[in-house]
């Protein structure tokens, strides 16, 4: 699914979190929203996921206006910064949640849900943790479970808010490859938010550099490295 963002802005009271920004994401791309905290990257991601609504502007999914779709209608697989796993449910029930929440007519039978959860656990290479609770998992395992839970709803796109933020450096590197593999297997249009330029440059097909609620530059990692468009970008990627 390709995503078009057209002159999107967001104000929280008197402060502008996003000045009008426009961005076109081709179908199947892996995109990094890169910027320091307060640059508006998470706000943009949350608007795409339907968790915030823009003050002005439009969001188009495959050419169709999606600006007023509810969060449930968007079918965006969302991975939260601290993963937001349901602490009172087992890993299995966490992953099955989205399938069980479907209206009766489109809800898969119990055996089919179990089969899909098992497949997802295999996909994230944690086949044996279905009966555990989130509190019994390591940070890296939690991140992968959150990813599996988001994939279970057969999302139209994948949105990840600082997916590696809560992990130590070694696990970070491993999971980067994990995300790349899952993206390549599923072919889902994927946007992830990060403040780590190494992560963005290494993982993404397309990097969107943001600062103070504005998009500073959009480009392939190599192009951004070779030709930073603004002094901010030059300084930020040099850091």
């Amino acid at each position, binding site marked *: 699914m390709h995503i078009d963002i057209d002159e999107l802005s967001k104000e929280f009271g008197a402060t502008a979190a996003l000045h009008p920004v426009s961005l076109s994401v081709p179908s199947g791309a892996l995109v990094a929203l890169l910027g320091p905290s307060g640059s508006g990257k998470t706000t943009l991601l949350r608007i795409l996921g339907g968790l915030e609504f823009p003050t002005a502007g439009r969001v188009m999914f495959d050419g169709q206006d999606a600006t007023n779709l509810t969060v449930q209608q968007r079918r965006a697989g969302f991975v939260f910064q601290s993963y937001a796993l349901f*602490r009172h449910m087992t890993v299995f029930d966490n992953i099955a949640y989205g399938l069980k929440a479907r209206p009766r007519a489109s809800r898969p039978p119990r055996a089919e849900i179990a089969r899909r959860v098992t497949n997802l656990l295999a996909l994230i290479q944690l086949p044996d943790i279905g009966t555990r609770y989130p509190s019994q998992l390591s940070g890296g395992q939690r991140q992968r479970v959150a990813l599996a839970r988001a994939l279970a709803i057969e999302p139209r796109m994948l949105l990840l808010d600082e997916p590696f933020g809560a992990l130590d450096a070694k696990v970070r590197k491993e999971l980067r490859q994990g995300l790349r593999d899952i993206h390549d297997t599923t072919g889902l249009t994927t946007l992830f938010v990060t403040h780590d330029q190494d992560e963005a440059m290494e993982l993404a097909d397309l990097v969107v550099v943001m600062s103070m609620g504005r998009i500073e530059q959009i480009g392939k990692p190599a192009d951004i490295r070779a030709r930073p468009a603004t002094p901010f970008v030059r300084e930020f990627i040099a850091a």
Partner: protein
Amino acid sequence: MSDAAPALPHPVTTERPLTRWLLIGLVIAVLGVLLFAPLITVFAEALRGGPGAAVASLGVPEARSAIRLTLMVAAISVPLNAAFGIAAAWLVAKYDFRGKTLLLTLIDIPFSVSPVVAGLCLVLTFGAHSALGGWLVAQGHPIIFAFPGIVLASMFVTFPFVARELIPVMVEQGRAEEEAALTLGASGWRVFRSVTLPNIRWALLYGVLLSNARAMGEFGAVAVVSGKIRGVTATMPITIEMLYNEYLSTAAFALAAVLALLALVTLGLKTLLELRHADALAAARRH
């Protein structure tokens, strides 16, 4: 020179044995004087004339009516307060809005206002001499000196318990899990049922138990609004006081023992639930 560290008289994080025993002893002494001694006295006094006399005193219509009334008041006011408490806590914990501090203050009013004053306010608002109360009496639905007034007074004094238990828990948990459930396609009601409620169930249980204990035991506010009509609007605490003032100690203490027993049963239920769900409780806390 040896490698061993110089021997400390005791580990730095614990007190000296003497201090420890002194503190523990003090706590036990205070608990004994303030809690256990009165509790034992109540039961001892109730049974002074033998168990038969105690049971017989509970069988009189006045006592039975008081027990029934108290249970009914709790059965109505506790669920309503649980619902209002959840709604208020949800609003305060999950949303930012103008007047939030004012709402928090309003929730706390029953804690800071004397129950007698609260009862008087209800009498002034709903009594036969007020416009609203006069109209209600004319319609045949009196509030004051009747059952609805007792329920209102009980709800007023127990209002903060559930909300106050829930707000810190809900603030700490944030909105992330609810948002996650929404992105997974769950409706608002399903999110509440399957994510919010399970996450707050222990705090909710504590709030409900406290609220229940207070609703059954409330004296001041109920005394003002009920008119203390024997066998009609006299709840257990009020009946106990009336019996005691009439030197009917056995009857008074028997009824007091039943009230204390109801409290002990709720405590027992709480402990039982905690034991049965110890794993889930531990998992939730470790997260």
